[in-house]
């Protein structure tokens, strides 16, 4: 497929405003200081709403472009003009980035509005909105960049915003630690991405999408595979995929709107965007794509299994996010058949997962920030709107027929089977199994939270949240219900993305779609039934039972993911730092201090020659003169 980007003109040339508006908002909020405390949240919401309006206008304008001209690029300024390295800052607006800017500004605006209520009692609400604006700006730059370097700037920008927001309550040690963990694990991925950029520059002399994709076919197969795997490493870090998944559940220490926007709907999908955007590279490497699918499969199973064992409502949702992004990776790794499907799931997931997080936030808001589901129960009657919107999100997530998740997840499982061969069966079977597990853990969550006998703390007075919070939840729940149907039947996403990914290949079905659909629905129903049988029919103990099977123990310990990281990386790392500190203290410092002491001692001894007596000075001069003269004579005559 020939990639052609046309220069932007007219309204399309104002895409840079999308990035600048929230950035300005962040700057004003941060520099304005406490004076803006009273109106900070209004500024934050206004900028994002304005951005959303602009995004809608831009996408409408892009849709109005004739076929074949639906990708416009706009070079803003020269960023790094050094020798052969010429990096321009430029934006690319095409159907793919259009989808993302709508998602980011749309969901972003809703969550901003929700945060007005959720953060209402926080004295640092202005700072919160500043960081959120910063995040939106960085995320938009990430998806709008016309080259890997611009993407990387946004990539690091969202990493920074994520770090700042996870540690928003930085006085809590857990939040500070979680932020550090997120930052460090992301660095691992970022190194992969930046090395990929270096390789592009070294082999192709450019880092812009147009040049890289045009030149990729001329690269050696090994180079393309290396590029793909390095990009995958970056994507794994940002999207919380195995083996770099451990930071994402911990990131729930941040305020819940942050979890909804950054750690569910947008930022964590940046990895999917990166791979989808790099489709022309991945198309050239079967190996890289296979690794992507395996990473996706392992992650989606991992997240689903661990999600079954946790009692913290946000952690369950977080593992669910890990798992759902695993689905997206699986799809995107399947190549041309899967790109559009992955983006479809990304969008529907953006709606229902953001809605679920906002619902969880609403529950916490009413329950004194309690997150332990064992202390919930029977909240359905106290929080009607939260309950209904949450339930719709839940149904969408488990893939209840004709809700959003049904369309997107079914398609992924279908495409996985269609990839053929033994691998196809493994991928499809695993994805279907995980759908059942998803149904199980989500039903468990629903039951423990909204049904059954109340197990509240004594001082809990559950109440419905204010309208400023419930309205965004309602809108997102509508999206959870209808987005799938609309994006498949009304405005087909596949057709819209065709200019980016090329025409979808003719499907060669291994298993008939209808069979997949029915089977999946059956598996989901089994999951729901199992949860009903194991959770709803029994009394939920307030303390988690101790005598449980090894499987549950392993799942509670997130399948020893943290333990693995700690024993394989953290402890040896600590030993290494301790050894280096020892070497530094004893060896380096010892040498330096010894040298200094030696010099000082020499100085002290030499100083004694400075007696203050003229006679000894004169003697030293005479000695010096003798030495000089002798040396001269020696040089000449010996």
């Amino acid at each position, binding site marked *: 497929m020939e990639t052609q980007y046309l220069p932007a003109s007219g309204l399309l040339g104002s895409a840079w405003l999308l990035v600048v508006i929230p950035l300005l908002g962040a700057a004003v909020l941060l520099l304005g200081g406490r004076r803006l405390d009273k109106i900070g949240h209004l500024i934050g919401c206004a900028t994002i709403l304005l951005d959303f309006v602009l995004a809608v206008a831009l996408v409408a304008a892009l849709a109005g472009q004739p076929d074949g001209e639906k990708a416009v690029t706009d070079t803003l300024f020269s960023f790094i003009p050094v020798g052969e390295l010429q990096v321009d800052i430029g934006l690319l607006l095409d159907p793919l980035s259009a989808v993302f800017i709508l998602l980011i500004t749309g969901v972003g605006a809703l969550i901003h509005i929700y945060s007005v209520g959720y953060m209402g009692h926080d004295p640092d609400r202005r700072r919160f909105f500043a960081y959120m604006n910063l995040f939106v700006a960085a995320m938009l730059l990430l998806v709008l960049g016309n080259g890997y370097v611009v993407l990387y700037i946004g990539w690091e920008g969202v990493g920074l915003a994520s770090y700042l927001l996870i540690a928003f309550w930085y006085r809590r040690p857990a939040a500070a630690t979680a932020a550090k963990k997120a930052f460090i694990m992301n660095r691992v991925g970022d190194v992969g991405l930046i090395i990929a950029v270096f390789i592009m520059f070294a082999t192709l002399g450019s880092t812009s999408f147009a040049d890289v994709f045009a030149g990729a076919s001329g690269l050696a197969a090994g180079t393309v595979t290396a590029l793909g795997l390095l990009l995958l490493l970056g994507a794994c870090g940002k999207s919380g995929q195995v083996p770099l998944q451990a930071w994402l559940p911990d990131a729930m220490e941040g305020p819940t709107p942050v979890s909804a926007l950054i750690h569910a709907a947008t930022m964590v999908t940046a990895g999917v965007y990166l791979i989808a955007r790099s489709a022309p590279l991945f198309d050239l490497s079967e190996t890289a794509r296979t690794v992507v699918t395996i990473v996706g499969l392992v992650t989606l199973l991992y997240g689903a299994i661990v999600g079954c064992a946790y009692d913290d409502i946000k952690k369950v949702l977080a593992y669910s996010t890990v798992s759902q992004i695993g689905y997206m990776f699986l799809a995107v790794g399947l190549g041309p058949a899967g790109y559009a499907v992955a983006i479809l799931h990304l969008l529907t997931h953006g709606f229902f997962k953001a809605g679920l997080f906002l619902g969880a936030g609403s529950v916490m808001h009413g329950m004194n920030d309690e997150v332990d589901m064992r202390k919930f129960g029977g909240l359905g009657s106290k929080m009607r709107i939260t309950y209904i919107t949450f339930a719709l999100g839940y149904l969408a997530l488990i893939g209840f027929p004709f809700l959003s998740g049904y369309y997107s997840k079914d398609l992924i499982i279908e495409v996985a089977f269609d990839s053929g061969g033994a691998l196809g069966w493994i991928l499809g079977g695993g994805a279907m199994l995980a759908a059942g597990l998803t149904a199980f853990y989500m039903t468990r969550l629903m039951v423990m939270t909204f049904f059954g006998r109340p197990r509240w703390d004594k001082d809990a007075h559950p109440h419905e949240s204010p309208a400023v919070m419930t309205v965004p939840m309602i809108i997102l729940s509508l999206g959870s219900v209808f987005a799938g149907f609309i994006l498949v039947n009304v405005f087909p996403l596949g057709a819209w993305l065709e200019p980016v990914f090329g025409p979808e290949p003719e499907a060669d079905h291994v298993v008939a779609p209808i069979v997949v659909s029915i089977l999946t629905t059956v598996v989901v129903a089994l999951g729901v039934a199992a949860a009903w049988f194991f959770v709803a029919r029994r009394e939920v103990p307030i303390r988690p039972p101790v005598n449980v099977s090894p499987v549950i123990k392993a799942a509670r310990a997130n399948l020893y993911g943290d333990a693995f990281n700690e024993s394989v990386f953290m402890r040896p790392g600590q030993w290494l730092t301790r050894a280096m500190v020892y070497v530094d203290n004893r060896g380096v410092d010892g040498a330096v201090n010894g040298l200094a002491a030696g010099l000082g001692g*020499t*100085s002290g001894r030499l100083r004694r020659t400075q007696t*203050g007596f*003229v006679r000894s000075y004169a003697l*030293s001069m005479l000695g010096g*003169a003798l030495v000089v*003269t002798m040396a001269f004579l020696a040089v000449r005559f010996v």
Partner: protein
Amino acid sequence: MPDLSAPSISYVGLAPVLIVLAAACLGVLIEAFAPRHLRWNVQVALALLGTVGALVAVVLVAGRNELTAARAVAVDGTALFLEGTIAALGALSILMFAERALDPAKSAFVASAALPVGSSADRKLAAAPYSQTEVFPLASFAIGGMMLFAASNNLLVMFVALEVLSLPLYLICGMARRRRLLSQESAVKYFLLGSFASAFFLYGLALIYGFSGSVDLGEIRESAARSGSSDALFVTGLALLIVGLLFKAGIAPFHAWTPDVYQGAPTPVTALMAACTKVAAFGAILRLLYVGFGTSEWTWRPLIYSIAIVSMVVGAILGITQTDVKRMLAYSSIAHAGFLLVGVIALGDAATAGRGLSSTLFYLLTYGLTTVGGFAVVTLVRDGDGEATHLSKWAGLASRSPLTAAVMTLFLLGLAGLPLTSGFTGKFAVFRAAIDDGAWPLVVIALLASAIAAFFYLRLVVLMYFSPPAEDGPTVGVPGLPTTIVLAVTAAATLILGLAPNAVLDLAEQAAVLVG
């Protein structure tokens, strides 16, 4: 019968030296005839007029390249650059001499140097607002002598100039108002050792005359070229001449006088010695080695090479254990003399001709300006006994007087050779010249010595900023106009020559011409 017609003298070319010496002579007359209440102002004005006039004359004369007064004095780029440098640094030192606001008795100089220390008359005069205004003509004589020293193309003239610059310095070293005994001791030491060094110089001169039959540097070079420069007379004479000059420049192992004299002398005089004497002595060294003994480079080069090492190492290492700011700056000057010799080594071949010379000229200028500034700050920090020069007194100075501490930090960083200060540019220039000339081992040692020396500069910075202030700490005087001008000029120069040194580097490059 030899032709005895009088040599032609280019008065224009000699104008810078003549102006300063004329101001000095006039100063003596004023001392004799002007009424006492006028003397101070007139002397200050005259001394400044002399030095600034000399600087103006240098600018006007610039571009000449000739030998005048029967080849005895050179008027060339190097001579004029050095004369200008000495005149400028001299003018700054004179301004420090003229400071009235810092000492309660209105001067750093004693009221009557002839009175025995501690006598009743001395005690009576201790707080009296009088001082010996002879210091101004004496300083002018010294500055004139220095300018001639750097320009002389004849060993006898060089010797005369050496004495003209030295004798007044011996005197004014002993004229401190505070700590008079220390000051007088330093004067006597300087005088005795200086005479000793002059004797070496004179003996060397005699031997060289015996070898070549001439005291003219050009003729010495020619006779050395003729006879292969391996005569014992020649070699010994050269060695003794170098010893005499190394003494004046305060280069180890002939440095022993430096700390004692720098510490004892009144600080404005120390500034004059540390800056101007060093410039003059290096001017003479450059001229002697490059003009008189340029063809016998391989005789003196190994020696200068090792002496540079000794001086850098001794200055840097001994500086570490000093507890007095003035002594510390003295050892700093010894180390810097070693760095300057690194530039002297880089005589260069045809391709890099003048690189060593021009970089040494530039280094002299930057070092002189920064050093004068450093000593000017020393005059500000005072307690009941005058200047508080013990390091412990400087603890926490930044909290009491942030501006003073900041300015001193700038000078110390300049002396340490940190980038963005003139010290870095100067060091970079001489080291590059030396590396171009293949003397990289010397540069490695110079860098190590710089690192060691940085310790004691930075220690003072740390002391000023990160130590709690001493309880009975010194007060920081508010300088009058003269010292303020000195501080402003030197601080600005330290910064500007670090940030945008190109104009001055080009000037030094153009000036790197030696005739003879």
